[in-house]
């Protein structure tokens, strides 16, 4: 089954729309769903032109395609998603794929903050850039992402994979400040540069294939390793936090 949601041009274009109902599973029982614009509840078809082709009886066979102007205002799309596919032909708003446990979300544009927050399984592919707190935890929470994969082909903002405890996060461009802060498990790979990686880490592995700027002074240099054809410098840390995580960087600079 393929569900196409084309956003209608809206008058009040700046108020965000919370659309946690957009999850493949929900379309198995029809399209009578609601979304919220600020404090107003709206029917799905007041915001989107809805087209359904084919049928399905399990979420794995549902693909939801979101398009149109203003998709960057849609928040919480794919929250608690457990199977099937969501494709966004454009940008997506905050909290896309929160708490996701299965299935795939593919975003052709950029993703706003908290992409895949506290995700436990499944796959998120972001073809553009991801804003701050990609694959992170929630405020005050101890564990962020615990499983699954997030792959960002552009750049990522600050606090990438904060508190990650499991799963894999791969960013092909640069990442911002504090990538992998409070990390205690899982794997974070940044293909280009980032600043202050793995601050306060307890466990897990963080790879920076570019330069780690503002490298923290509390990581202990162990030696060099070969990793997928690259020579990387291996550190253990964060010693300040009695951490035993692994940080691998191609190159680093202290703020001395």
């Amino acid at each position, binding site marked *: 089954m393929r569900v196409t949601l084309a956003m209608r041009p809206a008058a009040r274009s*700046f108020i*965000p729309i919370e659309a946690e109902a957009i999850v493949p599973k929900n379309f198995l029982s029809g399209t009578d769903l609601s979304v919220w*614009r600020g404090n107003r509840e709206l029917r799905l078809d007041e915001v989107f032109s809805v087209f359904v082709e084919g049928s399905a009886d399990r979420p794995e066979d549902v693909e939801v395609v979101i398009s149109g102007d203003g998709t960057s205002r849609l928040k919480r799309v794919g929250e608690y998603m457990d199977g099937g596919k969501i494709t966004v032909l454009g940008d997506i708003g905050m909290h896309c794929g929160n708490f996701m446990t299965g299935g795939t979300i593919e975003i052709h544009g950029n993703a706003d*903050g908290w992409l895949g927050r506290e995700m436990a399984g499944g796959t998120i592919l972001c073809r553009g850039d991801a804003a701050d707190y990609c694959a992170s935890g929630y405020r*005050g929470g101890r564990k962020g992402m615990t499983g699954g994969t997030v792959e960002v082909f552009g750049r990522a903002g600050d606090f990438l994979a904060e508190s990650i405890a499991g799963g894999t996060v791969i960013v092909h461009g640069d990442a911002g400040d504090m990538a992998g802060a409070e990390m205690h498990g899982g794997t974070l790979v940044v293909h280009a540069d980032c600043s202050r990686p793995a601050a*306060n880490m307890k466990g897990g592995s963080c790879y920076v294939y570019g330069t780690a700027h503002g490298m923290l002074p509390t990581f202990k240099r162990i030696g060099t390793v070969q990793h997928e054809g690259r020579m990387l410098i291996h550190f253990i840390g964060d010693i300040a936090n009695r951490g035993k995580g692994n940080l691998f960087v191609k190159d680093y600079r202290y703020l001395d």
Partner: protein
Amino acid sequence: MIVKDVVCPFCGCLCDDIEVEVEENRVVAVANACELGTKKLMGEKRMKNPILRDGGTWKDITYDEAIQYTADMLLSAERPLLYGWSGTHGEAQCVGVHMAELVRGVIDNTSSVCHGPSILAIQEVGHPGCTLGVVKNRADLVIYWGANPIDAHPRHLSRYTRYAEGFFLENAFRDRKVIVVDVRRTETANIADEFVQIKPGGDYAVLSALRAIVRGKTEMIPRTVAGVTREQLVRVVDLCKGAKFGAVYFGLGLTMTGGKYKNIRNAIELVSELSRHTKFTISAMRGHYNVYGSNEVNTWMTGYPFGIDFSRGIAFYNPGETTAVDILARKECDAALIVGSDPAAHFPRRCLEHLADIPVVQLDPYPNATTAFCNVQIPVAVTGIDAVGTAYRMDGVPIRTRRVLSTGYPSDEEVLIRMYALMQGAKA
């Protein structure tokens, strides 16, 4: 007439030993307060009555009209923002939360642009704090980190730290050491026993290094960290470990620089590490006299301290998304009620552009920078001068402010209660 034990409604020290001389219902002299407090208590020229923007000019309107305007504005909005709250009393803040819930709006206070990061850090690792009285009587080491009390909290030093007597200190001035950590040599740095100058953006690295040194891992620390020599870091750790009771006070120099709440988290974790060796506490130098109260009121009513979004009928909290600066910059609200703060004086330009596009009502006794963005401004009594109410000191101690003058102005609470009643009527 002299009024004693007046509470100064200016900064988070909330000094409660002020004397005010009143003649013909005017404050003519203030004793014991610092310059900032004196200026506030002496008062400025107030706005006389509510005003409504009418094209390019202002029109005088009645309180009834202004209150009705606000109620209608909030009821018709899809995502109203209720912002400010640090310059008013707790009772008014309570009404504000009820209003936000009723109209399903977002309520946020000024901590989202000052000590919000401190609260985020506390939510992660807790708050080993204590009251100011404990510090005054026991602390033999005080650290000011990214804070300049001589400028912002002038009597903090004389009432509680550098120049204060201490019950458990024989000669407080001699026995109490002060360390100042900052990116530039402030006035407070000049009265410190040890001044640590950090390169901008280097606080986090220095805090991490101190934690490692407290753990005995000195040998792994580079020769300098963000401009601070390893020798000085070791000296600071020795001073800390040698203290009987240490107290850290931090300011916006730590909360509002790169890494924000992670800086505070690191500072709290340093304090926890030091508490394995001696007694150590840490607290924020809260700015406005009742910004702490706003966090308290919000927390006991909604579970969250600031940035609370009621759009969906339940409280949702996510600073960075549900906080005023972010909402305005992203144009995510369609009306604003401002109480007890002056966002136009502090917010980035992008936020003000949106504020100019939406209806705005402000409750404030004085014309200020935000007035230029208002559709309606309602003058109210000043808490601590002509209105009474509860405020929370920077260490969380609630203090009831006093009234020294009687004017005809209604308090924030009275105005808000009337708005709330109108809105309840409309909803029912």
